[in-house]
Protein backbone atom coordinates (compact mmCIF):
# COMPACT_ATOMS: atom_id res chain seq x y z
CA UNK A 1 0.00 0.00 0.00
CA UNK A 2 2.76 2.43 1.00
CA UNK A 3 4.75 1.46 -2.07
CA UNK A 4 1.67 2.09 -4.19
CA UNK A 5 1.18 5.54 -2.62
CA UNK A 6 4.83 6.48 -3.00
CA UNK A 7 4.96 5.20 -6.56
CA UNK A 8 1.86 7.09 -7.59
CA UNK A 9 1.81 10.18 -5.41
CA UNK A 10 5.43 10.92 -4.48
CA UNK A 11 6.21 13.82 -6.78
CA UNK A 12 7.26 17.48 -6.55
CA UNK A 13 3.62 18.61 -6.40
CA UNK A 14 2.83 16.42 -3.38
CA UNK A 15 6.12 17.47 -1.76
CA UNK A 16 5.24 21.14 -2.26
CA UNK A 17 1.83 20.56 -0.66
CA UNK A 18 3.32 18.61 2.26
CA UNK A 19 5.83 21.39 2.97
CA UNK A 20 3.06 23.99 2.87
CA UNK A 21 1.02 21.99 5.39
CA UNK A 22 4.06 21.49 7.64
CA UNK A 23 4.66 25.26 7.51
CA UNK A 24 1.06 25.97 8.50
CA UNK A 25 1.43 23.56 11.42
CA UNK A 26 4.62 25.37 12.50
CA UNK A 27 2.78 28.70 12.33
CA UNK A 28 -0.16 27.49 14.43
CA UNK A 29 2.17 26.07 17.07
CA UNK A 30 3.55 29.58 17.42
CA UNK A 31 0.13 31.21 17.18
CA UNK A 32 -1.29 29.01 19.94
CA UNK A 33 1.71 29.79 22.12
CA UNK A 34 2.91 26.22 22.54
CA UNK A 35 6.47 25.86 23.85
CA UNK A 36 8.74 23.46 25.68
CA UNK A 37 11.06 20.58 24.82
CA UNK A 38 8.60 18.30 23.00
CA UNK A 39 7.21 21.14 20.89
CA UNK A 40 10.68 22.40 20.04
CA UNK A 41 11.86 18.93 19.02
CA UNK A 42 8.74 18.60 16.83
CA UNK A 43 9.47 21.97 15.20
CA UNK A 44 13.09 21.02 14.52
CA UNK A 45 12.18 17.59 13.14
CA UNK A 46 9.61 19.33 10.92
CA UNK A 47 12.28 21.76 9.68
CA UNK A 48 14.71 18.87 9.11
CA UNK A 49 12.08 16.92 7.14
CA UNK A 50 11.30 19.95 4.99
CA UNK A 51 15.02 20.56 4.51
CA UNK A 52 15.59 16.95 3.53
CA UNK A 53 12.79 17.12 0.94
CA UNK A 54 14.32 20.29 -0.54
CA UNK A 55 17.76 18.67 -0.69
CA UNK A 56 16.52 15.35 -2.08
CA UNK A 57 13.75 16.36 -4.48
CA UNK A 58 14.04 20.08 -5.21
CA UNK A 59 17.86 20.24 -5.35
CA UNK A 60 17.72 16.72 -6.81
CA UNK A 61 20.67 15.41 -4.85
CA UNK A 62 19.23 11.89 -4.74
CA UNK A 63 21.87 9.67 -6.36
CA UNK A 64 24.75 12.18 -6.39
CA UNK A 65 28.06 11.28 -4.74
CA UNK A 66 27.95 10.19 -1.11
CA UNK A 67 30.30 13.05 -0.19
CA UNK A 68 27.87 15.72 -1.38
CA UNK A 69 24.89 13.99 0.20
CA UNK A 70 26.79 13.81 3.51
CA UNK A 71 27.69 17.50 3.21
CA UNK A 72 24.16 18.70 2.56
CA UNK A 73 22.18 16.36 4.84
CA UNK A 74 24.98 16.55 7.40
CA UNK A 75 24.70 20.35 7.48
CA UNK A 76 20.95 20.20 7.91
CA UNK A 77 20.84 17.62 10.70
CA UNK A 78 23.91 18.96 12.57
CA UNK A 79 22.44 22.47 12.65
CA UNK A 80 19.04 21.20 13.80
CA UNK A 81 20.68 18.96 16.41
CA UNK A 82 22.87 21.78 17.72
CA UNK A 83 19.82 24.03 18.06
CA UNK A 84 17.98 21.25 19.92
CA UNK A 85 20.92 20.65 22.28
CA UNK A 86 21.29 24.38 22.98
CA UNK A 87 17.58 24.62 23.67
CA UNK A 88 17.62 21.64 26.07
CA UNK A 89 20.65 23.07 27.89
CA UNK A 90 18.72 26.29 28.28
CA UNK A 91 15.91 24.42 29.95
CA UNK A 92 18.24 22.95 32.57
CA UNK A 93 19.82 26.23 33.67
Amino acid at each position, binding site marked *: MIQYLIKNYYN*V*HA*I*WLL*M*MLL*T*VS*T*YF*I*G*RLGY*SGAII*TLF*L*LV*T*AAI*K*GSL*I*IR*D*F*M*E*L*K*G*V*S*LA*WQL*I*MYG*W*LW*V*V*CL*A*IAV*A*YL*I*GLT*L
Partner: protein
Amino acid sequence: MDYREPKLLPGDLAIWLFIFMELLVFGLFFIVYAVMRIQNIEMFNHYQLTLNRELGAANTLLLITSSYFVVRAVHAIRVDNVKKCIYWIYAALATGAGFLILKSVEYSDTFAAGINLSTNMFYMFYLSLTLFHFLHVILGMLILFAVAIKAQRGAYSAQNHTGVETGASYWHMVDLVWIILFPLVYIIR
Protein backbone atom coordinates in the same frame (compact mmCIF):
# COMPACT_ATOMS: atom_id res chain seq x y z
CA MET B 1 25.50 -5.94 -6.23
CA ASP B 2 25.59 -3.69 -9.24
CA TYR B 3 27.58 -0.55 -8.60
CA ARG B 4 25.70 2.48 -9.87
CA GLU B 5 27.80 5.47 -10.95
CA PRO B 6 26.84 8.51 -8.78
CA LYS B 7 24.74 11.10 -10.61
CA LEU B 8 26.41 14.42 -11.38
CA LEU B 9 25.51 17.42 -9.25
CA PRO B 10 22.89 19.54 -11.04
CA GLY B 11 24.45 22.77 -12.34
CA ASP B 12 28.04 23.99 -12.00
CA LEU B 13 30.36 22.65 -9.32
CA ALA B 14 31.31 26.26 -8.55
CA ILE B 15 27.78 27.09 -7.39
CA TRP B 16 27.83 24.10 -5.04
CA LEU B 17 31.09 25.24 -3.46
CA PHE B 18 29.47 28.68 -3.06
CA ILE B 19 26.31 27.07 -1.62
CA PHE B 20 28.41 25.05 0.82
CA MET B 21 30.24 28.15 2.07
CA GLU B 22 26.96 30.07 2.46
CA LEU B 23 25.43 27.18 4.40
CA LEU B 24 28.45 27.11 6.73
CA VAL B 25 28.02 30.82 7.49
CA PHE B 26 24.28 30.52 8.06
CA GLY B 27 24.72 27.32 10.08
CA LEU B 28 27.23 29.01 12.34
CA PHE B 29 24.92 32.01 12.69
CA PHE B 30 22.03 29.77 13.71
CA ILE B 31 24.11 27.92 16.29
CA VAL B 32 25.49 31.15 17.77
CA TYR B 33 21.89 32.43 18.06
CA ALA B 34 20.84 29.20 19.82
CA VAL B 35 23.82 29.32 22.21
CA MET B 36 23.46 33.02 23.04
CA ARG B 37 19.78 32.40 23.75
CA ILE B 38 20.73 30.01 26.58
CA GLN B 39 21.85 32.93 28.76
CA ASN B 40 18.94 35.18 27.79
CA ILE B 41 15.87 32.97 27.54
CA GLU B 42 13.35 35.36 29.13
CA MET B 43 14.55 38.26 27.03
CA PHE B 44 14.52 36.25 23.78
CA ASN B 45 11.07 34.83 24.55
CA HIS B 46 9.71 38.25 25.47
CA TYR B 47 10.87 40.09 22.34
CA GLN B 48 10.12 37.14 20.04
CA LEU B 49 6.45 37.84 20.73
CA THR B 50 6.84 41.28 19.12
CA LEU B 51 7.73 39.70 15.75
CA ASN B 52 5.12 39.47 13.02
CA ARG B 53 4.65 35.70 12.94
CA GLU B 54 1.98 35.96 10.21
CA LEU B 55 4.35 37.66 7.79
CA GLY B 56 7.06 35.17 8.69
CA ALA B 57 4.74 32.25 7.91
CA ALA B 58 3.45 33.86 4.72
CA ASN B 59 7.05 34.38 3.60
CA THR B 60 7.84 30.73 4.26
CA LEU B 61 4.90 29.66 2.10
CA LEU B 62 6.04 32.08 -0.63
CA LEU B 63 9.63 30.79 -0.65
CA ILE B 64 8.58 27.13 -0.72
CA THR B 65 6.23 27.90 -3.60
CA SER B 66 8.92 29.86 -5.40
CA SER B 67 11.30 26.92 -5.00
CA TYR B 68 8.61 24.62 -6.42
CA PHE B 69 8.19 26.91 -9.43
CA VAL B 70 11.93 26.69 -10.09
CA VAL B 71 11.72 22.87 -10.00
CA ARG B 72 8.99 23.14 -12.66
CA ALA B 73 11.27 25.37 -14.74
CA VAL B 74 14.06 22.78 -14.64
CA HIS B 75 11.66 19.99 -15.56
CA ALA B 76 10.33 22.06 -18.46
CA ILE B 77 13.74 22.78 -20.00
CA ARG B 78 14.68 19.13 -19.75
CA VAL B 79 11.88 18.34 -22.22
CA ASP B 80 12.92 21.27 -24.40
CA ASN B 81 9.93 23.41 -23.39
CA VAL B 82 11.74 26.76 -23.31
CA LYS B 83 8.57 28.82 -23.12
CA LYS B 84 7.29 27.01 -20.04
CA CYS B 85 10.74 27.16 -18.47
CA ILE B 86 10.72 30.97 -18.81
CA TYR B 87 7.16 31.14 -17.51
CA TRP B 88 8.02 29.18 -14.34
CA ILE B 89 11.16 31.26 -13.70
CA TYR B 90 9.14 34.48 -13.86
CA ALA B 91 6.56 32.90 -11.54
CA ALA B 92 9.40 32.13 -9.13
CA LEU B 93 10.63 35.73 -9.45
CA ALA B 94 7.12 37.03 -8.72
CA THR B 95 6.84 34.96 -5.53
CA GLY B 96 10.38 36.00 -4.62
CA ALA B 97 9.35 39.62 -5.04
CA GLY B 98 6.38 38.88 -2.79
CA PHE B 99 8.84 37.73 -0.14
CA LEU B 100 10.86 40.95 -0.45
CA ILE B 101 7.71 43.10 -0.24
CA LEU B 102 6.37 41.36 2.87
CA LYS B 103 9.81 41.52 4.44
CA SER B 104 10.05 45.24 3.71
CA VAL B 105 6.66 45.79 5.33
CA GLU B 106 7.89 43.87 8.37
CA TYR B 107 11.10 45.93 8.53
CA SER B 108 9.31 49.26 8.13
CA ASP B 109 7.08 48.39 11.11
CA THR B 110 10.14 47.29 13.08
CA PHE B 111 12.16 50.43 12.36
CA ALA B 112 9.09 52.65 12.86
CA ALA B 113 8.86 51.22 16.39
CA GLY B 114 12.37 52.56 16.94
CA ILE B 115 13.98 49.12 16.91
CA ASN B 116 17.45 48.72 15.41
CA LEU B 117 20.55 46.53 15.61
CA SER B 118 21.65 48.00 18.93
CA THR B 119 18.27 47.85 20.73
CA ASN B 120 19.08 44.50 22.38
CA MET B 121 20.67 41.14 21.62
CA PHE B 122 17.50 39.50 20.34
CA TYR B 123 16.80 42.26 17.84
CA MET B 124 20.45 42.30 16.84
CA PHE B 125 20.18 38.62 15.90
CA TYR B 126 16.72 38.97 14.34
CA LEU B 127 17.73 41.93 12.16
CA SER B 128 21.19 40.70 11.18
CA LEU B 129 20.03 37.14 10.41
CA THR B 130 16.99 38.19 8.37
CA LEU B 131 18.80 41.06 6.62
CA PHE B 132 21.63 38.68 5.68
CA HIS B 133 19.03 36.28 4.26
CA PHE B 134 17.20 39.19 2.55
CA LEU B 135 20.39 40.00 0.62
CA HIS B 136 20.64 36.37 -0.45
CA VAL B 137 17.08 36.47 -1.74
CA ILE B 138 18.00 39.51 -3.85
CA LEU B 139 21.15 37.79 -5.18
CA GLY B 140 19.16 34.64 -5.92
CA MET B 141 16.58 36.66 -7.83
CA LEU B 142 19.29 38.42 -9.88
CA ILE B 143 20.69 34.99 -10.80
CA LEU B 144 17.23 33.71 -11.79
CA PHE B 145 16.56 36.87 -13.79
CA ALA B 146 19.84 36.39 -15.71
CA VAL B 147 18.82 32.78 -16.41
CA ALA B 148 15.41 33.96 -17.67
CA ILE B 149 16.99 36.50 -20.03
CA LYS B 150 19.42 33.89 -21.41
CA ALA B 151 16.56 31.44 -21.82
CA GLN B 152 14.61 34.05 -23.79
CA ARG B 153 17.63 34.43 -26.06
CA GLY B 154 17.56 30.72 -26.75
CA ALA B 155 20.61 29.79 -24.72
CA TYR B 156 19.06 26.72 -23.12
CA SER B 157 17.64 23.44 -24.41
CA ALA B 158 17.17 19.84 -23.35
CA GLN B 159 20.80 19.23 -24.31
CA ASN B 160 22.20 22.35 -22.65
CA HIS B 161 20.59 23.67 -19.44
CA THR B 162 23.37 23.69 -16.84
CA GLY B 163 22.74 27.39 -16.26
CA VAL B 164 19.12 26.75 -15.31
CA GLU B 165 20.14 24.04 -12.85
CA THR B 166 22.82 26.32 -11.41
CA GLY B 167 20.35 29.13 -10.75
CA ALA B 168 17.83 26.65 -9.39
CA SER B 169 20.33 25.13 -6.95
CA TYR B 170 21.20 28.50 -5.48
CA TRP B 171 17.55 29.46 -5.14
CA HIS B 172 16.78 26.20 -3.31
CA MET B 173 19.60 27.00 -0.88
CA VAL B 174 17.94 30.36 -0.09
CA ASP B 175 14.73 28.45 0.67
CA LEU B 176 16.54 25.76 2.68
CA VAL B 177 18.08 28.38 4.98
CA TRP B 178 14.74 30.11 5.59
CA ILE B 179 13.14 26.73 6.45
CA ILE B 180 15.34 26.70 9.59
CA LEU B 181 15.45 30.45 10.22
CA PHE B 182 11.67 30.82 10.48
CA PRO B 183 11.00 28.31 13.32
CA LEU B 184 14.26 29.22 15.08
CA VAL B 185 13.66 32.96 15.31
CA TYR B 186 9.86 33.28 15.10
CA ILE B 187 8.45 30.15 16.82
CA ILE B 188 10.77 28.19 19.10
CA ARG B 189 10.45 29.44 22.67
